[in-house]
C-alpha cells in the first residue's frame, strides 16, 4: 500500500509482516544500548536490559508525573519538582489486542495500561512476552525494554513495555 512519505520519494513500500521480529528480549540485552530510543526523556535502559521509567514529583503537592513535567499541575510551580524513577512492578488495569493497527506496526500487537498504586501513575505501553489469553485485568506486570514491533523498513527503536510476572507455584 503506498504511503504518503514514500510517495514523495517515488517509492512504493510493501508491508510484509516479518515473523523474525517477534520479540526476543534475551537477544536485545546484548545490543539494546546501541538502538535508537523511541523518545528521549522517558526512560533509561542499561546494557543488561534493566532500566527504569523517568518520572518526577512535586514535593509540595505530593503528585507524581510521567512523563516528567516542567510545572506541577496543582500548584503550577516548578520549585519543588524532584526527579524520580519507577523500576518495579505494577498492576494491569486493562488491555486489548489490536488487529487493525498503525501501518508501521506488525499486527496483531497487545497494548494496555499498567497502574503504579504508590505513585498514582497509569502508564500506557505495549505488552509482550505472552499470548493475549495469558493476560488478565489486575495481573502483576513487570517493566521490560524491547524493540518496538515495527515492520521492515521502519527502523529499530527501543521502548518500554510490560510483561506478566510469572505467578509462584505455576509451572
Amino acid at each position, binding site marked *: 500500500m503506498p504511503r504518503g512519505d514514500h510517495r514523495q520519494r517515488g517509492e512504493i513500500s510493501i508491508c510484509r509482516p516479518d515473523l523474525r521480529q517477534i520479540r526476543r528480549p534475551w537477544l536485545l540485552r546484548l545490543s539494546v544500548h546501541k538502538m535508537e530510543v523511541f523518545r528521549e526523556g522517558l526512560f533509561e535502559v542499561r546494557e543488561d536490559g534493566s532500566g527504569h521509567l523517568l518520572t518526577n514529583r512535586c514535593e509540595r*503537592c505530593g503528585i507524581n508525573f510521567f512523563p516528567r513535567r516542567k510545572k506541577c499541575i496543582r500548584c503550577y510551580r516548578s520549585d519543588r519538582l524532584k526527579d524520580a524513577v519507577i523500576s518495579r512492578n505494577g498492576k494491569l*488495569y*486493562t488491555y486489548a489486542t489490536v488487529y487493525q*493497527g*498503525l501501518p508501521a*506496526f506488525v499486527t496483531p500487537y497487545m497494548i494496555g*495500561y499498567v497502574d503504579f498504586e504508590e505513585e498514582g501513575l497509569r502508564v*500506557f505501553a505495549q505488552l509482550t512476552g505472552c499470548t493475549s489469553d495469558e493476560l488478565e485485568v*489486575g495481573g502483576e506486570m513487570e517493566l521490560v525494554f524491547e524493540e518496538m514491533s515495527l515492520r521492515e523498513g521502519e527502523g529499530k527503536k527501543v521502548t518500554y513495555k510490560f510483561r506478566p510476572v510469572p505467578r509462584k507455584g505455576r509451572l
Partner: protein
Amino acid sequence: MTKFAPNVKMRLEELGAEAVWGALEDAGMDLKGIQGVYCGNVFRRVGIGQRIMTEAGHTGMPITNIENACASGSCALREAYFAVAQDRYDVCLAIGVEIRPDRFSGPMGDETDLEGAQGLMFPALYALRAKRYMFEYGLKPAHLAQIAVNNRKNAYYNEKSSFGELIDIDTVLKSRMVADPLHLYDCNPVSDGAAAAVVVNEKTARRLGGKPVEILASSLTSGSLEAGFIDMTFEEMTHRAAQEAYHQAGCGPEKIDFAEVHDCFTIAEILRVEGLGFCERGGMISWIEDGTIAISGKKPINPSGGLLGKGHPLGATGIAQIYEICKQVRGEAGKRQIEGARVGLAMNRGGVTPGIEGNACTIHILRAPQKWTR
C-alpha cells in the same frame, strides 16, 4: 443535511453549499440574511467556511473556521448560538462538513503523541475501555453487538444514511476483529457529508414562521488534567458538560425524551449514556437488554442511527445530530418517529490528548416550542 455516504464525488465546497441551501430553505430565508458564519471541519486546513459561502453565493460577513476534532460541528453551532444569544447578530449560520482523507489513521498515530506513537489508535483506545467496563460490570460482547444492531436498524429508516441494515447480533460478532473486543460492526463506518443550521433570535423566528426549534442549553468542556488515575469506565468530561447543560436548561436528565449520543464505537454509547446521568453506572446493561434505548423504548438513543448507522464525517456529525433532533420534535421523522418527542439532547465529542479524557465534549438541549407560528 446531505446524505452521508462514503466517497462522495463532490468537492468539499459543493457538499457544504448543499447543506447551506437546505438549511436556508428549511428556515424560509435568503442567503443575504446571514450575518455570521461558523464552519466546523477537521481535515481541510485553511478557509473552508469562506470557500463554502463562496460556492453557496454570498460572502462579506464574518466567517470563522472551527476545529475541535469530532466535535467541530457542534462547536460551530455553539458559537452561532452564543453570537445570537448575546445579541451580536440576529441570524447566524453553523456549518459542519467533512470528506475523509484517503488514509485516516487518526491523529493519535503521530510520533509526537506519546501513546499514539506506541500503537494507540481510536479502536484500540475504545477496546481498552470496553475491556475494563466488562471487568467491572460484567458486560458481554452480545451487549455491545446489540447497540450496533439497534443503530443500524434506526439508520435503515433514515434516508440520510447509507449504512442502514437489518442485522442481528451474530452478524456483528462474526465480523472481523479490529481491536479485541471490538469487531468491525462495533466501529463507525467511513462516510462523507455536510450539515448546516440557521440560528436566529426570537424576533426573527416569529417573523420567519415555520417550525423553529428552541435551543435551551449549549455547553462545552475539555478533559480535566488530574493527578492520579483517570477512570476509563466513566466519562467525567461528559458528566461535567451535562451538568452545565442541565443547569442552563433548568431541568435534569429525567426531562430529556431522547438523545443523539456520540457513538463512534458501541462501547462509546454505553459510556456516554451513563456519563449523561440517564442511568447509573453499569445501568446500560439492563437498558440494552430490555429495549429502553430502542425507538419504542422509554429513553430512545440515536434514533438517526448515530455514527454507527450513518458513519462519521467528523466536522458534520455534530450538526447532523441537531438535524435529527429537529426532525423528531417536529414530528417529521417518518418510520423513526419517537412518540411524543419534545425535548432532545445532542452529545458530541472528539479528540484525544494523552493525559486527559478527551479534547471537547459539547452538549445541546433543544425543545419544540408550545406553539408553532404560521
